């Protein structure tokens, strides 16, 4: 194709995909497949794509179960921002319940988690293991926001 408009964009600002999901378990799969389609397109290796899928799944599941307390009318908003360096994924909920910051620091013990009702700590630990950068914040609107970054090795 000779048309220059077929070329990739020069700036990074346009590579943004936004996904709004109801807070019901099962919809995290849509976010996982969106993430892997974008990551494959950006040239991430298979195992990095798999890591990203798991991290996105855990983050969205957390937002559905904890942040939005399974209230399906509440939205989970996932924003994927691609750049030459990698992919940023922001997962925001509407903050029916604010994340306990201590949960983001601890390393769960397998025996403890197996016998606990709250499996959330395990998910956050996994995300931190799998992604290159993870940040937790409370959005001005009051919801929880989790930002994870996965770098392209170049």
């Amino acid at each position, binding site marked *: *194709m000779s048309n220059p408009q077929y070329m990739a964009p020069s700036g990074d600002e346009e590579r943004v995909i936004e996904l709004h999901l109801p807070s019901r378990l099962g919809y995290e799969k849509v976010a996982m497949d969106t993430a892997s389609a974008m990551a494959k397109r*950006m040239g991430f290796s298979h195992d990095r794509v798999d890591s990203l899928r798991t991290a996105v799944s855990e983050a969205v599941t957390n937002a559905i179960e904890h942040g939005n307390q399974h209230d399906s009318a509440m939205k989970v908003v996932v924003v994927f921002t691609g750049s030459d360096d990698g992919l940023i994924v922001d997962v925001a909920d509407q903050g029916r319940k604010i994340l306990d910051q201590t949960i983001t620091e601890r390393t769960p013990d397998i025996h403890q988690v197996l016998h606990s009702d709250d499996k959330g700590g395990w998910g956050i630990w996994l995300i931190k293991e799998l992604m290159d950068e993870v940040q937790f914040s409370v959005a001005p609107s009051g919801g929880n926001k989790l930002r994870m970054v996965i770098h392209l090795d170049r």
Partner: protein
Amino acid sequence: MIDDELKVTTRQRDGIWIIDLEGDVTTFAEEAITGAYEGVSKDGAKYIIINSRQSDYINSAGIAILIGVVTEVNRQAQKLAISGLSPHFQKIFRMVGLAQYADIFATEEEAIAAMQRHQKAASEPTKQ
């Protein structure tokens, strides 16, 4: 972003040229496919198989490129077959009518067998 998601290679089997497509057949495929077709034609190909290695994504722009190849094949009195499409894309090719102009086979082996029948028929003296 990586847009170059198609690999096109050509090879020959018993006087039949095979153009292998591996990846997406979309608007970005035009140069690669047209180039490969022109290449085998220059080498004197009479029997050509476009073999998709289970492409998961073929769209109407990609089909348009293949229609362009069919137009040339008709003009050059060559014979074209298409193989390796998933059942879904075989259906799509029938929907757009491409199946009337190029024989469509599930596998490369079936396409080769059909081409060999054409070769044989062409080499035999015409029966009146």
